[in-house]
């Protein structure tokens, strides 16, 4: 019965003079998400609201599911709207609405009328009372509860009259594209896709870099990362995925540096490379999935040591989350099952038995000097041979 949705948005509502920028971005993102759905849609902005109208056949569930990937949406309300043809006609429409949407009438309700068009003959209080009365007459099993009703029936008098009662939660956040771009260090694990999702939720566009180490890591490990990027891109929009061949750098570190410091030194070079690509692609920050104390390379000391090579801000949205909390988000966004596929990534292969948990930056720097003369060329080659994949949600 529904052919339209009213889109409620969260924080955009409180923006000032640049509010239209946020609204326009949201409309763009909604359009993009609905391209994946069967049917044709018209999206319009009116009086601080966004409406999605289905033109012809469409799939209700699929449409809602895709709208739920658009950051900035706090609620999706399936809505019925009619022309104003007098109160009697409106009463009929509302009775019909309740009858169809709630087959079981054993419920409590409350009418929430809003009158944006002030010349309507009834005022808000009168509307609440009159519509409530009509419904109680039509369905004696219904009862009114103004405090905690089962159904909040919204009736809004605007240029047309809008009726809705269900609010399906959206992902909240801000529309992607309203807040710059950042580079995500994407591994095949559980945390980094979640980190990308969380930063993207704040309106940030994301690109990603993956460090590939053939033959130590397989093509399947790379495919897994592409799959993860695709799942994140359902929310963030297309992701430019830079695949960097890290094998030679890793081997050089393995050969010339103490093995307990391998992971830290390796991560420092990954950050350096990521930052270089980020700067070349107008990214304003890096994103990692690090969480304090999760593994040896994520202790406060280790983070201090890896962070030291960057000047761009490094965003770590998982930093205060427990593993279980991260897992819950990954399940929600659909990356968990892909993340737990058992392919080696380059962090798990060259691991020392007892890596340092409190690296000393001075020692690290001194040991890195062993690489002087070799590493510069290797970094250059890694950058010049990187592969760029554009990952889109619909592929």
């Amino acid at each position: 019965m529904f052919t339209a949705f009213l889109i409620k948005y969260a924080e955009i509502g409180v923006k000032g003079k640049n509010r239209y920028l946020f609204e326009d971005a949201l409309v763009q993102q909604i359009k993009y998400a609905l391209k994946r759905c069967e049917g044709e849609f018209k999206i319009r902005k009116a009086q601080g609201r966004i409406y999605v109208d289905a033109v012809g056949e469409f799939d209700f569930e699929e449409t809602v599911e895709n709208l739920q990937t658009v950051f900035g949406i706090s609620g999706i309300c399936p809505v019925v709207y009619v022309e104003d043809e007098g109160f009697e006609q409106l009463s009929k429409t509302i009775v019909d609405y309740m009858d169809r949407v709630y087959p079981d009438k054993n419920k409590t309700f409350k009418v929430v009328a809003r009158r944006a068009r002030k010349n309507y003959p009834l005022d808000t209080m009168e509307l609440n009372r009159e519509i409530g009365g009509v419904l109680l007459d039509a369905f004696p099993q219904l009862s009114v509860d103004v405090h905690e009703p089962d159904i909040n029936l919204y009736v809004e008098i605007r240029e047309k009259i809008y009726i809705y009662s269900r609010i399906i939660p959206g992902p909240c956040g801000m529309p992607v594209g309203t807040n710059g771009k950042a580079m995500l260090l994407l591994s095949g694990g559980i945390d980094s896709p979640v980190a990308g999702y969380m930063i993207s939720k704040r309106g940030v566009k994301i690109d990603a870099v993956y460090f590939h180490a053939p033959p130590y890591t397989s093509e399947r490990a790379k495919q897994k990362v592409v799959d993860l990027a695709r799942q994140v891109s359902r929310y963030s929009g297309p992701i430019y995925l830079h695949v960097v061949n890290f094998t030679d750098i890793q081997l050089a570190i393995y050969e010339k540096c103490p093995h307990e410091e391998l992971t830290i030194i390796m991560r420092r070079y990954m950050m350096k490379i990521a930052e270089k690509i980020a700067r070349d692609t107008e990214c304003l920050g890096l994103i990692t999935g690090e969480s304090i104390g999760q593994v040896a390379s994520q202790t406060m000391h280790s983070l201090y040591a890896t962070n030291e090579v960057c000047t761009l801000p490094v965003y770590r949205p998982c930093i205060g989350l427990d593993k279980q909390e991260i897992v819950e988000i990954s399940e929600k966004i659909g990356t968990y099952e892909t993340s737990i596929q058992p392919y080696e990534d380059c962090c798990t292969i060259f691991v020392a038995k007892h890596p340092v948990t409190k690296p000393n930056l001075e020692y690290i720097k001194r040991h890195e000097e062993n690489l002087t003369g070799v590493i510069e060329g290797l970094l250059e080659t890694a950058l010049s041979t990187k592969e760029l994949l554009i990952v889109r949600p619909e592929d």
Partner: protein
Amino acid sequence: MEVYLDNSATTACFPAVAELMVKLMCEDYGNPSSMHIKGMQAEQYLRYARNVIAKNLKVNEKEIFFTSGGTESDNLAIIGAAMAGRRAGSHLITTSVEHPAVLQPMKFLESQGFQVTYLPVDKQGKVILEELASALRLDTILVSMMHTNNEMGALQPIEEAAAIVKNYNPAIIFHVDGVQGYGKYRILPRKTGIDMLSVSGHKIHGPKGVGFLYIHEKVKIGPIIFGGGQQKGLRSGTENVPAIAGMARAVEESYASLEEDVERMRSLKNQLIWGLGQLEGVQINGSTGEDSAPHIVSASISGIRSEVLLHALEDRGIYVSAGSACASNKPAYSATLKAMGIEKALLDSTLRFSLSLFTTK
């Protein structure tokens, strides 16, 4: 000239399907479980196939399992779910007009202590929904019903049946044999309330020896084939990659212009029915309207044994089948036509004409 009107038995492959399969047999022949790139290439074809089918059904990729065909899909769905659900109950429901691929597993399960109710059908071959409602029991664990009947094309009221079943007890698994309906209709399991859907490759212009089973992620089901643990352990055995990819290509081609193709088939079917109606002693079985499949016509010709007529038509290059191909190599009368209440004298005089998108005037 050859006029092939036995498309419910099997169909001609799309050329694009055959082409893809040759490539997969001669070039990209890897085992998808191999670690190396050759294996990964093969795996990519499985991913492609899963993606195409999942999109077509609007379900999740991980809910698609490849089998050796419609028969295995039905066996896996019915035996696999019955065995896994044994603790919850031992009552199963199906209809009296199912394909043997459903009826025989049911018979097997009866021998293993399960109880099976076979629902009757009306003269049009449709399940009587009231009978379904009254057959449901507290210990019912599975209901299996075909989408489209293979012998006379009756469409079953799947959506209504699903609603009745789920309303009674949402835990009951609703399985649909979609072998004849898939490729002619858009079937959306989630919307319709179908928990498992069996499909065969060679009825939709794909290769023989391949099919798939859609299994809703919440359905508990165990394997009936044991081995190397492929497909999450539910269907061991190296995947038949060429056939699976071929089937996926056939899905793409079958649905590319479905509405047009179906409309054309239906108009050809109506012409055929009209033509047959001009002949003396011909009776068309079952419904012929929009509630019947666009590609199947069942006709009884009084006084002539179907086998004789079949061979007479064959001499003129027209290929049809007597009853259904799967039932016709046995001398027994068609259980479906009997269940529909067709006169005994006509049972042995029934031909099935089945069209496809390749059928022309």
